[in-house]
C-alpha cells in the first residue's frame, strides 16, 4: 500500500526545521534515561477485566493496523512506511523479550506512548502519534499495557529504518517534540454530556483522528486552530470533519455511527483507503464508544441532533456524455455494472456516486485513488472495487474522472485529473 507519502514528507521536512530549534534551545531536553528491563510479566499478573478493557482501547487506537506487516503476525511490526526520505518500519509490540516489548515495564510503556521515548531512552518518530496519546489517562494506559502484554509473543526483528543520511539522528526528534508535543491530560468540558466528553476523549486521544484529518504545518505538526479541517493520509485526502466537509449535510450522528461501525451505510459511501481498516477495527468496538465518537464528530461538523439533508441525487447523464464522450464509454464498460441505476449495487440500495464525498470534493485525489487502487473488502473478502491501474492509462482514467465529476455533481470540473491518476498509481507499478 502507498503509505503516507505526502504526510511523511511534510513531517520529515519539519524535522530539519526542528533540528535547528532543538539544537539551539533544548540540548538539555534531548536526554532521556533508559528504564530498567523487567522480566516478562505472566498472564496471571493481569486480571481479565483490565485485559478486556485494554482490548477495546487498542481497538480505538487501531494499534494492530500500523504494527502489523502485510500478512504478518499481528502486532509484530515491520510494516513499512515508505517516504521520499527513506522508509520507517513499525516496531514489534508483542511481548517477546528480545524483539518486542516483553521486558518493558508499565512505566516504560507509558513513557513511550505519552512522550515518544523508547525504553532505552531513544526518541521515537512521531509516526507513533504521541501528540495524541499524551492525553490518554494512566488507567487506560495500564489497560492497554495489560492487553499488549498478554498477546502471543512473536520473535520478529524489525528492519532498520532506511532514512537518508542525517535524518536518522534521533536526538533531532527532541526538538520536534518541544515544538509540537502538547502534553497534558484530558479535561472534560463542563456543560457537555458525558457521552460527548467520552467521544472527545477518544477522538483526540487514542483514536488520533486528527493525525489524518487535521492539516499539518510546514514542520509536520498538526496545525493548532485548524483541527479537523482535513489532511492527508497514504495518498488519500482525509476529508475535513468540520463544517467544511463537502458532504456535511448528509451526515448525522446515526449515519456516522453506521459508517464507523459497519464501514458503510445508507447515506454515504463505504470507508475507502486508510479509513477502511479504521472502520474495520471500529466494528469490534462497543456500540457505546462508537456512538460517543459519532456524537462528538457530529458536533464538530455542526450536525449534532441534525436530521439528514440529502438533497436530490444529481445525474447529468446527457450533458456529461456530450462533454466527455470517451469518459462516458469507459464508464459504461467499466463502472456501470456497479454504479449505473439498475446495477446490482443500485438494486441493493447502495448510493449513487453523487452522494460520495470523494466525488463531491474539489480535489480528485480520492476518486482517482479509488479507481487506481481499488477498494478492498474487509479482511479476506476480495474486492469491493477492483483496481483499474492495469486496465486503463492515466489519461483514460482522467477522462473517466471528468465524466464522473460532470455527471454526478454540479461542481466545477476537476483540475489535473491526469496528475491525480498518476500519483494514485500503486507504488509497485510506477
Amino acid at each position, binding site marked *: 500500500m502507498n503509505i503516507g507519502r505526502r504526510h511523511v514528507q511534510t513531517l520529515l521536512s519539519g524535522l530539519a526545521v526542528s533540528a535547528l530549534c532543538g539544537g539551539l534551545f533544548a540540548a538539555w531536553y534531548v536526554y532521556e534515561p533508559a528504564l530498567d528491563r523487567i522480566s516478562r510479566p505472566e498472564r496471571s499478573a493481569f486480571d481479565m477485566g483490565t485485559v478486556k478493557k485494554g482490548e477495546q482501547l487498542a481497538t480505538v487506537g487501531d494499534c494492530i493496523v500500523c504494527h502489523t506487516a502485510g*500478512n504478518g503476525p499481528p502486532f509484530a511490526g515491520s510494516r513499512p512506511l515508505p517516504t521520499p526520505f527513506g522508509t520507517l518500519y513499525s516496531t514489534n509490540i508483542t511481548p517477546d523479550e528480545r524483539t518486542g516489548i516483553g521486558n518493558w515495564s508499565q512505566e516504560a510503556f507509558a513513557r513511550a506512548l505519552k512522550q515518544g521515548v523508547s525504553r532505552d531512552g531513544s526518541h521515537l518518530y512521531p509516526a507513533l502519534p504521541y501528540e495524541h496519546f499524551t492525553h490518554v489517562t494512566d488507567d487506560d494506559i495500564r489497560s492497554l499495557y495489560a492487553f499488549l502484554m498478554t498477546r502471543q509473543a512473536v520473535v520478529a526483528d524489525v528492519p532498520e529504518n532506511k532514512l537518508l543520511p542525517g535524518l536518522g539522528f534521533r536526538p533531532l526528534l527532541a526538538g520536534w517534540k518541544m515544538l509540537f508535543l502538547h502534553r497534558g491530560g484530558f479535561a472534560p468540558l463542563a456543560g457537555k454530556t458525558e457521552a460527548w466528553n467520552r467521544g472527545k476523549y477518544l477522538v483526540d486521544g487514542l483514536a488520533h483522528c486528527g493525525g489524518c484529518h487535521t492539516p499539518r504545518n510546514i514542520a509536520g505538526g498538526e496545525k493548532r486552530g485548524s483541527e479537523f479541517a482535513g489532511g492527508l493520509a497514504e495518498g488519500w485526502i482525509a476529508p475535513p470533519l468540520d463544517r467544511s466537509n463537502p458532504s456535511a449535510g448528509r451526515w448525522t450522528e446515526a449515519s456516522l455511527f453506521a459508517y464507523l461501525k459497519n464501514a458503510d451505510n445508507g447515506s454515504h459511501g463505504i470507508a475507502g483507503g486508510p479509513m477502511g481498516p479504521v472502520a474495520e477495527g471500529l466494528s469490534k468496538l462497543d456500540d457505546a464508544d462508537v456512538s460517543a465518537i459519532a456524537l462528538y464528530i457530529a458536533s464538530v461538523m455542526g450536525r449534532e441532533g441534525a436530521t439528514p439533508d440529502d438533497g436530490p441525487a444529481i445525474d447529468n447523464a446527457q450533458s456529461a456524455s456530450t462533454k466527455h464522450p*470517451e469518459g*462516458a*464509454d*469507459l*464508464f*459504461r*464498460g*467499466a*463502472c*456501470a*455494472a*456497479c454504479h449505473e441505476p439498475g446495477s*446490482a449495487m443500485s438494486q441493493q440500495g447502495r448510493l449513487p456516486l453523487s452522494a460520495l464525498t470523494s466525488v463531491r470534493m474539489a480535489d480528485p485525489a480520492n476518486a482517482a485513488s479509488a479507481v487506481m487502487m*481499488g477498494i478492498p473488502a474487509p479482511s479476506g473478502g*476480495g*474486492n469491493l*472495487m*477492483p483496481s*483499474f491501474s*492495469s*486496465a*486503463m*492509462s492515466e489519461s*483514460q482514467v482522467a477522462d473517466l474522472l471528468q465524466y464522473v465529476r460532470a455527471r454526478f455533481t454540479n461542481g466545477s470540473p476537476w483540475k489535473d485529473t491526469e496528475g491525480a491518476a498518476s500519483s494514485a498509481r500503486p507504488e509497485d507499478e510506477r
Partner: protein
Amino acid sequence: MTSYLNVNGRQHAVEADPATPLLYVLRGELGLNGAKYGCGLGQCGACTVMVDGKAVFSCLMPVRALAGRAITTIEGLGDVTTPNPVQQAFQEVQAAQCGYCIAGMIMRAQSLLETNAAPSDEEIRVHMQPNLCRCGTHSRILRAVRSASDKLSLKGSPAGTK
C-alpha cells in the same frame, strides 16, 4: 464504431459499441472461449486475460481503452496439441474440477511467471488471490503454478507464449 484490437498477435477490426467490455468481444465477436463470465464485477477472475503483460479483468475492460495494446488470451498461450508450460503443468497436475475458473487461473499464473519465473510459494498465493475457485481446486492450482515455475526457472526462460 470500429475498434482495432490486437489479440494473440493478430489484428482484428471489431464493429461494436466502444463501451463493450473486452469479455463480450472476445466471446461474441471473436469466438474465443477462454475468458469466462463469472461476476462482471471484477471480483472473481474467471474473465482474466493479459493486456500488455498484466492480468486484467476483461469483464470491466471497455474496448475503447484497448487501442494499440497487446491482448493475450489463453488461446494465445498454446493449444491442445502444443500447450505452453503453464497449461501443460495444469494438465499434468490435473488441476481442475469443473474447470470453469481454470482459464482465468492460467492467465493469472502466466502473468506472474512472465515477470518472475521463480516466485516463492507465498508470492504465488498472493498473486493468485484475486481469482476464485468454488470447487476447492486451490491446492492443485498452486501445485501446477509451482511446477510450471520450477520447469521454467530451470530452463531459465520466461513463460513463453505461442
